[in-house]
């Protein structure tokens, strides 16, 4: 397929999926819709995460910071502003924080970057907790004005579609090419004329804007928010895990993995929360070891390849354990002596 056909295919798949998700509340049960909402939230979070962090390999754990900032901004603004303005405010505030945070940490790589983004998330969480306790004198806030369930669903759906559409488009632009170059060899990209600092800040801010908007849209679902809920580091970890298991370099990987995850989460979390966490860990280990490209890299012959590997291992072990290997060795030795 050429570039254009691929683009049309991706756009059509996205269109179809969006239509299906749009029709879901009309016939599905309350439980399925709430499952779909979680799923869409993670689609938006991990697609936008993979857009920057996947291609450039800057492993950011700050998603929960942006999510929380968006949630707080949205929840507080909703008393005075209309719904969409509150979402935009959440996204904007998260972007501003990402630009400041990016200026401080985006020149670091690898573990240092990951740890510092995580540290900054904790810093923001504790700063807000302290502010709430000492200035406003509360530990959490009860939301009075809450939009209808369908409004929330549509907003999160729109954000998820926008996140995937952004990934589709960005891959084909100079911005996307620059991100790829930074991921492959940052210094080389720089000597070829990429303003890496600007591109990285823009990418980080884009990721943060999505996380902030999703946070603002999801906060109203809880009706009561406090820092431990909205700055929950698990949101950030899960976003990263979903993107990695699905394939951080692929377009559909985060989406596929988000669906798998939310189904797993909803079915396992209530009955056996420990099993759910173990399943997460196990999936991550398996995908890193056997599917480095993620779930989205599975093709028709992937399973065939595994089957071939297993057969080869089995043949080798049978040769060894049947004693045939030892016999062959002995014969070889006798032939040499003779």
């Amino acid at each position: 397929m050429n570039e254009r056909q691929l683009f049309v295919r991706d756009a059509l798949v996205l269109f179809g999926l969006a239509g299906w998700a749009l029709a879901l509340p009309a016939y599905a049960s309350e439980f399925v819709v709430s499952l779909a909402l979680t799923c869409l939230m993670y689609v938006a979070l991990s697609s936008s995460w993979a857009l920057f962090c996947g291609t450039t390999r800057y492993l950011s754990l700050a998603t929960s910071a942006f999510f929380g900032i968006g949630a707080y901004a949205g929840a507080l603004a909703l008393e005075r502003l209309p719904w969409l303005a509150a979402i935009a405010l959440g996204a904007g505030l998260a972007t501003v924080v990402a630009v400041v945070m990016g200026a401080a940490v985006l020149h670091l790589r690898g573990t240092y970057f990951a740890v510092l983004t995580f540290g900054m998330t904790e810093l923001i969480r504790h700063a807000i907790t302290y502010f709430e306790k000492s200035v406003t004198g509360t530990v959490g806030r009860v939301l009075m004005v809450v939009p209808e369930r369908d409004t929330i669903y549509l907003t999160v759906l729109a954000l998820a579609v926008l996140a995937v559409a952004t990934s589709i488009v960005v891959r084909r632009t100079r911005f996307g090419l620059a991100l790829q170059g930074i991921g492959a060899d940052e210094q080389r990209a720089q000597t070829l004329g990429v303003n890496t600092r600007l591109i990285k800040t823009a990418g980080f801010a884009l990721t943060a804007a999505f996380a902030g908007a999703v946070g603002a849209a999801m906060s109203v679902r809880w009706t009561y928010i406090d820092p431990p809920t909205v700055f929950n580091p698990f949101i950030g970890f899960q976003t990263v895990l979903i993107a990695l298991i699905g394939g951080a370099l692929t377009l559909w990987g985060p989406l596929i993995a988000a669906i798998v995850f939310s189904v797993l989460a909803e079915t396992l979390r209530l009955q056996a929360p420990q099993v759910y966490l173990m399943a997460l860990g196990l999936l991550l280990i398996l995908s890193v070891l056997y599917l480095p490209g993620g779930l989205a890299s599975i093709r028709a012959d992937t399973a065939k390849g595994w089957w071939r590997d297993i057969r080869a291992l089995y043949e080798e072990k049978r040769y060894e354990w049947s004693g045939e290997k030892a016999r062959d060795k002995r014969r070889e030795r006798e032939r040499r002596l003779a």
Partner: protein
Amino acid sequence: MPEPSARPVLLEARAITVRFGGLTAVDAVDARFASGELVGIIGPNGAGKTTFFNAISGVVAPSSGRLVASGRDLSGQAPHRYAAHGIARTFQTPRVFAAMSARRNIEFGLRFAGRRRRRWIFWGEEASVPWTLRSADGILALIGLGNVAELPAAALTPSQQRLLEIGMALATRPKLLLLDEVAAGLTEAEIEEMARLIRRMRDELDLTVIWIEHAVTTLLRHVERVIVLHQGRKIADGPPAEVVRNAEVIEAYLGDEMAEDDA
């Protein structure tokens, strides 16, 4: 062609010093590179050749000293500013984008530092770009990788990757090309081929070429001027025939090689 001294100076390094902690890797090196020159830089291991290169291509910020490119002071700026001012470089170990095809590797440079706002062929900025550098195909043909253009760069042989590395630098449409040990590890025939390519690029594309090489004899045969670095300092600067007679150079560098030849 006018005398080298009459041509405009493209890049001027004024007392460039690079320190790493207590070690002074490059010590107050002055150098002027005029347009159209083919200059070699030699020096024993650890003489600071690559560090000097990193400093004049912006990869390493010099601890002190100034870098002036066509009258514009670039000291302390990010590497992409150097690329935008027509300074392109290759790296000692090829640093190609392994997952992209060879053509995409070339297009990368064309789409960033090599991008010209006006695409008109007969006027605008594109008109000053040599014909060979206008498209990825032209560059691939020049470096002789036209038949492997669609292969991922990781699948190319090391010598092909080195050529691709030069192609990527050319794609930024440079005025000054910095080559870091492009002939290291090549066979004698390949080195000759590389030297011919370098001369050809200089002549056909109006480039100024600065070429670092560890193998002195090859380099001296092909360059017009040579700068010798020793322990971070510049100890000689002149035509190869003069430089090899310089006592300090013989002692610092050629001495041990000649002693080996005698033995």
